[in-house]
């Protein structure tokens, strides 16, 4: 059983969906991405996190072929993004952070246009609108859509041709809780069907909830790469906050023998008013890893 799992894992790693090798992107003297090396597996939902100017958007722009790398190489599903961009284009879908619809068209017409470009039957337009719960607004002009509806329409457009790789920039921004849940469900479905999803987000709960793995980038470098659970295990602070009977507040590090002993004595002597253990805080972990204020 263990052997089979290793073989399965190696198959993924030998043939990753996205392979980034020493990617460097410079804008003049500013280095946006600095020797980034990263493999994203097939059938994985990968979260890319980082503060402003960390290089997330630049990395995505390289992945969608809109920015040539200064150095290194990037391949998507075995194709080089620079040399074989035309081959890669039909394989991925992209949800940008800024909505880009034809305002003068209805939602339906917007999707029909892109369906024609992808050579997808019109029936699929209806399916995609239903998927993002916009079927009733399909015949409304996009200029009448709310921000959330526009974002859902972006996702519907990206899903039209059932891409093998899906890039999403802030997919749940401006969405209500229910709509965010719908998006999460769609993304998990894509992954369960073998698709690869790469998203950038600022929502830590979202990362914990849906991402298989997370890469944290800062100043163009990858500072952490693991599953949310592993990051949690690595970075959870085992600290207990105590409010003493005197009203004084004190924190005890549970990894230190002396502090554990002191806390035990205080509890035994009834000199504590309340005790609380700290939960894992992705935000705090993020700050610790990047050393920067969160965007």
């Amino acid at each position, binding site marked *: 059983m263990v052997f089979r799992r290793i073989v399965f894992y190696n198959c993924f790693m030998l043939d990753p969906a996205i392979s980034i090798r020493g990617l460097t992107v410079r804008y003049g003297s500013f280095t946006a991405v600095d020797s980034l090396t990263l493999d994203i597996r097939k059938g994985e939902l990968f979260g890319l996190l980082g503060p402003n100017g960390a290089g997330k958007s630049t990395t995505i722009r390289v992945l969608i072929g809109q920015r040539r790398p200064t150095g290194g190489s990037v391949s998507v599903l075995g194709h080089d993004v620079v040399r074989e961009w035309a081959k890669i284009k039909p394989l991925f879908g992209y949800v940008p952070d800024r909505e880009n619809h034809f305002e003068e068209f209805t939602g339906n017409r917007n999707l029909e246009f892109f369906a024609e*470009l992808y050579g997808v039957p019109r029936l699929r337009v209806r399916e995609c609108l239903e998927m993002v719960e916009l079927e009733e607004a399909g015949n409304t002009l996009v200029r009448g859509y709310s921000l959330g509806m526009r974002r859902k329409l972006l996702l519907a457009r990206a899903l039209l041709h059932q891409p093998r790789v899906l890039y999403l920039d802030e997919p749940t921004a401006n969405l209500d809780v229910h709509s965010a849940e719908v998006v999460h469900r769609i993304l998990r479905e894509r992954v369960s069907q073998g698709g690869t999803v790469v998203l950038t987000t600022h929502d830590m709960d979202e990362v914990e909830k849906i991402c298989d793995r997370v890469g944290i980038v800062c100043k163009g470098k990858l500072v952490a790469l693991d599953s949310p659970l592993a990051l949690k295990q690595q970075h959870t602070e085992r600290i207990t906050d105590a409010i003493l009977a005197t009203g004084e507040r004190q924190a005890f590090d549970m990894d230190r023998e002396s502090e554990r002993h002191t806390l035990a004595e205080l509890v035994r002597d009834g000199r504590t008013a309340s005790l609380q253990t700290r939960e894992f805080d992705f935000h705090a972990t993020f700050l610790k890893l990047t050393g920067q204020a969160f965007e």
Partner: protein
Amino acid sequence: MRFYILRALVVKELHRHAANRGGIALGLLLIAAAVMLSVFNPAGFGRGGSAATEAAGTGMVGGVQHCFVYYTREDSELMTPVLNHLEKTVPPDLAHRVRFRNMHPDRIKEGVYYQPGVASIRINAYTQDGRPHLRVDVFHPPGDTAAMAPYETWLWRELRVGLQEIAEQKLKALKVTNADLPRVGTADDDLWAVREAFASLRRDADGWQPGLVPEVEITREGLGGQTLELRSAIATALVVFALYFSCVYLLPTLNCEERERGVLLAQALSPASPAEILMAKFLFYPVLGGTLAAIIAGVYKPAVLSTLFFWAGLFTVAAGFLGIGMTIATLAKTQRAAFMGAMCYLLSVSLVLVICSTNGIPFVSNLALEYHVPRVLHASLSGSVHSVHWLHLLAAMGLAAFWLVTAGWLFRRRGWQ
């Protein structure tokens, strides 16, 4: 190039314009203007510019902006002092409008094609039967003799003064001091009176010494060409505007709008290649402008649609404007910049053409597509295509090719930015 992608892109452009009510209203207004031009045409519905209206001399720019004075030095003894006097006495308000040109005696009687707003005076001095002769031919715009009035007033007055001074100098050389040659009277543009004034001067001078004053022969003729006919000129303006609006204004502004909104990126990330996106725009905008232009021209004068010259001109203009539009679209980053670029281009070209026209600056105007285009289209709409209009068409084709190459080169360098 994949047909289904091209079709999707072209249909998208069509739907975008169908959703633009302002654009549709503008197109309908242009067609309505053409209908009115045709319906209220004295020559009859659908006749376009007629001989009757042309003869009325309804030039868009009235009068004569430039007058060429051609001369030969066949009889240089007479011509040189006459010419010196005329050159010295050009009134200041006509100084930049009158151009003196030496012409070979063999060519003085040849026909020359003049642009609207240009006329000429030809002076030829020669000796016949031992007597000096001075032949003055005035060529005015057809049906508009009055257009030459300021030039003729100056010419007749100063020619008489000049001949009188020459005669007086000759009499002085003959020691005749009491000669009483007739004084120059008030300006008169009646040709009989002018001839009589010269004859009177010659008769009086002959009394002292025969041959002192040449025999002046005067003719006044209409030019062989046609004036800029007002209806055809308006129809030409509508046709040019339709093409300009479509290719130089709509194409760059809507293209930059797509770029600003990110829709162009969305299309670029789809299977459509940049070449296909470009080709769809190349197919759509000239066809849109050309169709509107053909409808306007057809409504104004249906017969024009059966002429090769009109279609050749229309395709050339569409291609040239497409090149200009794509150049602006490639250089401008935003919709506002594209709009400003289109307007600045229009104004700067208009300014250059006006400056060159009013100051007689040669050649520069020929570098502007907008110099040749109205002439080509006006000639086809007024039904007066001369060999010179084919030259304008050739020049327009060359300039259109230049703009297309420039647009292509810039696109290859800058892409969609």
